[in-house]
């Protein structure tokens, strides 16, 4: 099947959604997604961030779709033509959706631990406006303790329900879900049962905002002051890949997360033992620095180039000069077929 998104043509298999096709193309055409998660079944269609304009339904039926469609749940048709970033309507719609998502968001980024790697921050940076038109009081919830590993900030939640899908698909039985309806809808645990399943920590990684954050990392540091490294260990938990990103400050591991790809989705889910209990450098085999997209704030910790120890040879330099400068042409033992660094001149 052939699909054209923003003028980029791509060949996809039947059953691919528009969002997946756009991600195959990559770059600017990829619509933002707050609720869709390719690794979790049944996600998508809730946040409406990924709206696109279909200007040609298919080769068989070329009429355009009258409304903007959510690209994460709309399948591709042969010969479909889609406008994502190039469409004025889509840009307007994304602006409106961003404004709606921010209506109840407390905007406490200076306090929030997710700041710097937050999808909502990125979304509002690109599509949001600087002012707010919302004058009513924001929806607030009583702080609730859902265990000693995960911190729940219900005020920040945008109800994408990714965490519910994590609990549904990764853990044996889930103890939390969405309670109530409409404006009162909230993520909570049934009778405040603590979340203690071995894979429950992944809901921190899938949360696009700071609603679910690591309690062991709470207020320890801002993400951009930490240095992320790829690391792995032999994990005995069934289902855990043991491949993680460790966030270090000096020689101290402050936080362990799963590795996130360019769309901020985890590559492989990790277990709670890896995430919370292995905070010693000796637990991990460090592979190397983790790269982030060019405009990410995490890059301010620019340590990716190799730093050699500086040797100050001042005394020797002043007294004797550089070695290569000390060679004299008039000295007998200099080979004229030799370059200054010692390599032979080719004949």
């Amino acid at each position, binding site marked *: 099947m052939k699909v054209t998104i923003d003028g980029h043509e791509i060949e996809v298999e039947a059953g691919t959604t528009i969002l997946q096709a756009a991600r195959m193309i990559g770059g600017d055409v990829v619509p933002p997604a707050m609720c869709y998660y390719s690794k979790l079944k049944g996600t998508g269609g809730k946040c409406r961030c990924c709206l696109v304009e279909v200007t040609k339904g298919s080769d068989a039926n070329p009429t355009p779709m009258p409304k903007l469609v959510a690209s994460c749940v709309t399948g591709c048709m042969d010969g479909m033509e889609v406008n994502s970033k190039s469409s004025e309507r889509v840009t307007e719609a994304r602006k409106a959706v961003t404004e709606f998502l921010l209506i109840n968001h407390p905007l406490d*980024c*200076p306090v929030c631990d997710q700041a710097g790697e937050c999808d909502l921050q990125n979304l509002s940076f690109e599509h949001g406006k600087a002012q707010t038109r919302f004058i009513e009081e924001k929806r607030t919830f009583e702080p609730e303790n859902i265990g000693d590993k995960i911190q729940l900030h219900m005020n920040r939640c945008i109800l994408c329900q990714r965490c519910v899908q994590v609990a549904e698909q990764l853990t044996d039985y889930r103890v939390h879900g969405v309670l109530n309806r409409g404006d009162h809808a909230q993520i909570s645990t049934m009778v405040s049962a603590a979340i203690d399943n071995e894979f429950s920590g992944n809901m921190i990684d899938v949360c696009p905002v700071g609603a679910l954050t690591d309690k062991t990392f709470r*207020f320890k540091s801002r993400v951009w*002051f930490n240095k992320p490294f790829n690391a792995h260990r032999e994990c005995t938990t069934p289902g855990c890949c043991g491949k993680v990103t460790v966030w270090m400050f000096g020689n101290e591991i402050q936080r362990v997360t799963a590795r996130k790809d360019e769309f901020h989705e985890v590559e492989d889910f990790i277990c709670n033992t890896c995430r919370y209990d292995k905070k010693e450098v000796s637990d991990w085999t460090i592979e190397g620095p983790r790269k982030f997209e060019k405009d990410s704030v995490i890059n301010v910790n620019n340590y990716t180039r190799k730093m050699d120890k500086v040797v100050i040879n001042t005394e020797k330099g002043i007294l004797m000069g550089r070695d290569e400068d000390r060679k004299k042409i008039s000295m007998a033992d200099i080979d004229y077929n030799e370059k200054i660094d010692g390599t032979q001149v080719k004949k």
Partner: protein
Amino acid sequence: MATSIQNISLSGKKKQVSNKEMTFWERLYLVAIIKGLLITIKHFFRKKATIHYPEQVREFSPVYRGKHTLKRDEQGRENCTACGLCALTCPAEAITMKAAERKKGEEHLYREEKYAEIYEINMLRCIFCGLCEEACPKDAIYLTISKELVPAQYDREDFIYGKDKLVMPLEVAMANTQKLN
């Protein structure tokens, strides 16, 4: 006729000096002395270039930036929430901080859930550019118009200003609030 090398002035400052004999008036030097004195006396009536420093102080520019202060709000609570944006933007890397969580019963001390437990500015590194002030989302850090920048000290350690020197004293915050009302 080609000019000889002796007559060329590359810098244009070449001056022909002569060794001619001085006249009687020139030999007397009195004229030269009076000329010189007149220049001196003229300067008595000119505007002075200097000021009496400790008693008099020059006018500062309206955008002058002096020592930093960490502000308190009208209820006397610290504004700073240790978001780290000042440290991020600081080109001299002078700012360090450590965040802590506000405990129950400390709501009157700190405005937000998180606050700066330790906040340090290395005054030897600081270049008083004011970017920290600009980056602050909570209006917490300000560069004051204090004319004294950093007083001289003997130890380097004394130039690292902690919260003891940076946070606005409570009395000042109270006075500010009274001024507002």
